[in-house]
């Protein structure tokens, strides 16, 4: 029998036969590891999350007509779009607008590509189904409130067409949309329905485009579009793209700070738990020393236990941390995160190091216990 087999036997017995005691220590390590790995996951996931998040705040380029015309054509848009990096395009949504009346009250009707609209305006909160068939419309919350419409209601739209002829059309409400913006006073329908109603072919008022690029690149892209395209001008939607970087940095710094604080708290927590464990085991340490154990042997036993605690605590923590990060991500960003397998060994290694560091002082004091305590009664 090798010497270390008995060493392992002692360590595992100490851990498993003193379950309730070790459970506290394990919990401390696992909790720390969970919060740490969770925060690290979020830390690295934030740029990805926020990138999507900012993109989901809608378009970052808007196309409008240039020159004296107030509209541009489908072909102009196609040409302009060809100057954008194809793989980074999230969506391009054309719009046509017309003032119409429902029940003698004026509203804005918008004809659009409903599928693309979902991509460039993912933050729209739609209760109901996006229009599928001809004659279906998506109405803003304001419209729904004013005219008392709800999903399934039918309403009539009147107005004057491109050829100055009055028109009247019936639509069914397929859904009501909340956006927190002016869109709530709009009635959205497919371009086809819009053209059938108001006439005019292929003419567009604006187009929104969402491109997944950094704000610096966006500027370059827009410049090249404007140099090359005709009848159409691209403009950046400044509000979001520029604040993106600043917000990201601040958020990451915040998480970084929180992670550092948690790391210190974890170490204090594990250290105090370990100190309590050592204090509780003074007699046992004294006994072992009375039996001839050297300081190094005592330290090796405690360190061995810590490594076990670090491994199991780290493993538990890595799993719990992922669940934590997932919960935060789902609740805050409404998106799931991807699992990083590398994080498991990293968390375990970190747990071992933290546990060992936290145990350094208690283990040293453990090794210094005077064997004479054993003969002296309680």
């Amino acid at each position: 029998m090798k010497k270390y087999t008995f060493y392992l036997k002692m360590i595992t017995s100490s851990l498993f036969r003193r379950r309730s005691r070790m459970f506290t220590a394990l919990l401390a390590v696992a909790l720390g590891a969970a919060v740490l790995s969770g925060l690290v996951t979020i830390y690295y996931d934030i740029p990805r999350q926020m990138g999507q998040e900012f993109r989901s705040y809608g378009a970052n380029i808007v196309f409008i007509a240039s020159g004296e015309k107030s509209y541009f054509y489908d072909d102009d848009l196609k040409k302009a779009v060809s100057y954008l990096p194809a793989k980074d395009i999230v969506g391009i949504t054309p719009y046509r607008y017309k003032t119409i009346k429902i029940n003698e009250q004026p509203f804005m009707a918008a004809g659009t590509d409903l599928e693309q609209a979902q991509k460039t305006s993912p933050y729209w909160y739609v209760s109901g189904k996006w229009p599928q068939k001809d004659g279906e419309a998506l109405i803003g919350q304001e419209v729904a409130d004013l005219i008392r419409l709800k999903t399934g209601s039918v309403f009539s739209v009147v107005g004057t067409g491109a050829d100055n002829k009055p028109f009247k059309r019936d639509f069914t409400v397929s859904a009501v949309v909340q956006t927190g913006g002016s869109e709530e006073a709009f009635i959205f329908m497919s371009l086809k329905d819009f053209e059938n109603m108001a006439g005019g072919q292929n003419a567009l008022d604006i187009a929104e485009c969402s491109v997944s690029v950094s704000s610096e690149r966006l500027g370059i892209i827009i410049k090249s579009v404007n140099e090359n395209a005709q009848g159409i001008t691209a403009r950046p939607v400044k509000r979001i793209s520029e604040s993106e970087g600043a917000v990201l940095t601040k958020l990451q710094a915040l998480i970084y700070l929180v992670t550092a604080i948690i790391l210190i708290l974890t170490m204090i927590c594990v250290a105090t738990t370990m100190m309590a464990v050592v204090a509780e085991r003074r007699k046992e340490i004294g006994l072992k020393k009375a039996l001839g154990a050297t300081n190094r042997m005592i330290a090796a036993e405690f360190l061995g236990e810590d490594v076990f605690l670090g491994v199991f605590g780290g493993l538990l923590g890595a799993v719990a941390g992922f669940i934590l990060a997932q919960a935060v991500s789902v609740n805050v960003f409404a998106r799931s995160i991807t699992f990083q397998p590398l994080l498991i060994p990293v968390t375990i290694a970190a747990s071992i190091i933290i546990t060992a560091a936290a145990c350094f002082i208690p283990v040293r004091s453990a090794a210094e216990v005077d064997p004479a305590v054993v003969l002296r009664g309680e």
Partner: protein
Amino acid sequence: MNLLELKNVSKIYGEVKALQNIELSVAQGEWLAIMGPSGSGKTTMMNIIGCMDKPTHGRVILDGTDISKENAKALTSVRRDKIGLIFQQFHLINYLTALENVMAAQYYHSMQDEKEALEALARVGLARRAKHLPSQLSGGEQQRVCIARALINYPMLILADEPTGNLDETNEKIVLDIFKALHKEGSTIVVVTHDPEVAENTQRTVILEHGKIAKINVNKKINGGNKI
């Protein structure tokens, strides 16, 4: 030849003189009892003999070497190699079985040997209790595990501090019989006891009072009549 010699040994804790100018020698193979009222310095003396503490003054010569000036590390190795310790409060490692407790002493000494550890347990009548945890053993059984553990590395000197102090009569007799057998085999034993029945079986009894040797009783029955 004397295995152990205390020369003018004193131990002072601040104001308390736990031991004062102790002169004592213990011969190879001798069985010695130490008696005295509580607080008279018995445990202090055992700690010094057992290399767990150092005297404030004086010299302690064990097996020809002066251990009173050694550092903690050297004392640990002397203790490991030459001393077998038995305590009043049993002191087993509570998460190790009886067998593992005995093997722990082997492990700290040199190398664990399960077969030998089992034999040691058999010797104190606990072969069938080898896999039990201390909490599953009676007081008497725990003390016997302690004895098996103290003997496992063939110590030169067995030190027992009130080994029967916490035991009932039946177990006291079992433990006493083990000591008798050890003595017969030639072991050197120093036992602290309150029990005259234990002292009766030893060759000499040292009576401590206020840290001083008040009297040494030589047991004529044993020394003269070869009674064991």
